[in-house]
């Protein structure tokens, strides 16, 4: 595989062909914020926090770094006024859904995002898809999926699968940026398969 040299934040970075800009940046120790990215999963390009400015042949455009392949002589800026402004707005929109997410709050400090800018619609889930994709791609159980679309989209456990698989796994729990996943699981458990977890026996 051939080597590709590009520039990220003024630093020469060598990457291999087929790598994404995000991977190249990470390999060089350059931080780009992400929400829906996970190294074990196929990129999802859902959150758009990872956008960066890319300059090639004199033109500057915004690219989504987790799904954009490296190119020779690309000049990447991981922060710029334009990028920061967009990230700030994205964070503000996400915070309207999950105002108390620690991950979002940390980024909000960095980008000066105001969590009260947009009217609150505390759905908690921000549709990053980490739980759904992790269960499908890594654990291969498909115990949790998306239902609905648009503003009504939400995650949903499949009780028949969750009742036998989840208690011994829960690997997706720490991935959720908002804890909504845990809440959804507890709710499903309470409704569909109570008393199967390791609660103290109370009979």
């Amino acid at each position: 595989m051939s080597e590709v040299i590009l520039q990220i934040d003024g630093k020469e970075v060598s990457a291999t062909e087929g790598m994404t800009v995000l991977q190249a940046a990470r390999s060089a120790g350059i931080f780009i914020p992400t929400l829906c990215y996970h190294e074990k999963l196929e990129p999802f390009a859902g959150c758009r926090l990872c956008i960066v400015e890319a300059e090639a042949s004199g033109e500057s455009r915004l690219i989504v770094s987790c799904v954009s392949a490296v190119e020779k002589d690309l000049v990447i800026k991981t922060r710029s006024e334009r990028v920061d402004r967009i990230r700030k707005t994205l964070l503000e929109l996400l915070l309207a859904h999950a105002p108390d997410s620690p991950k979002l709050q940390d980024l909000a400090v960095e980008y000066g995002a105001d969590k009260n800018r947009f009217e609150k619609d505390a759905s908690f889930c921000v549709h990053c898809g980490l739980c759904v994709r992790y269960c499908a791609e890594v654990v291969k159980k498909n115990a949790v999926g998306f239902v609905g679309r648009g503003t009504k989209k939400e995650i949903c456990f499949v009780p028949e699968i969750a009742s036998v698989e989840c208690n011994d796994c829960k690997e997706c729990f720490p991935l959720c940026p908002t804890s909504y996943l845990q809440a959804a699981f507890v709710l499903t458990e309470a409704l569909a398969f109570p008393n199967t977890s390791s609660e103290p026996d109370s009979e």
Partner: protein
Amino acid sequence: MDIERIDQIIDSHRGEASSLIQILLEIQRENGWLPREALDRVRERLQVPVSRIQHIVTFYKAFSLVPRGRHQVHICVGTACHVRGATRILDKVEEITGIKAGETDLDLKFSVETVGCVGCCALGPVLEVDGKTHGKITPTETAAVLKSYE
């Protein structure tokens, strides 16, 4: 809808998982809705996860997980129809059928749905029943149209 018929539909697609949406559409078209048993059968035969089926059937409006009425009533609430009084048509339909948009009445006679622009704005407000378009409709005419259906 019996299992044999569902198997026939699946077989006509050679049981390929990539035909999932087509198979679901055919069941929907023939049966009017997607019963749990049908979805279970499709899942078993195609070896696809429930979560994928769930995602698809809740994503597209063409699918219904509950029985639909014999007649599909669509009221256009697109911009043009809205300014031409679609709300009054919708009110009338809801009054006559006794149900709200998105619902089906208990006799399974009508299913009422609002839709975005149906593409003939000059005819607004537009009411569609079982695919037949009634343009420039008034609330009084709406009542007459609905009464003509059994």
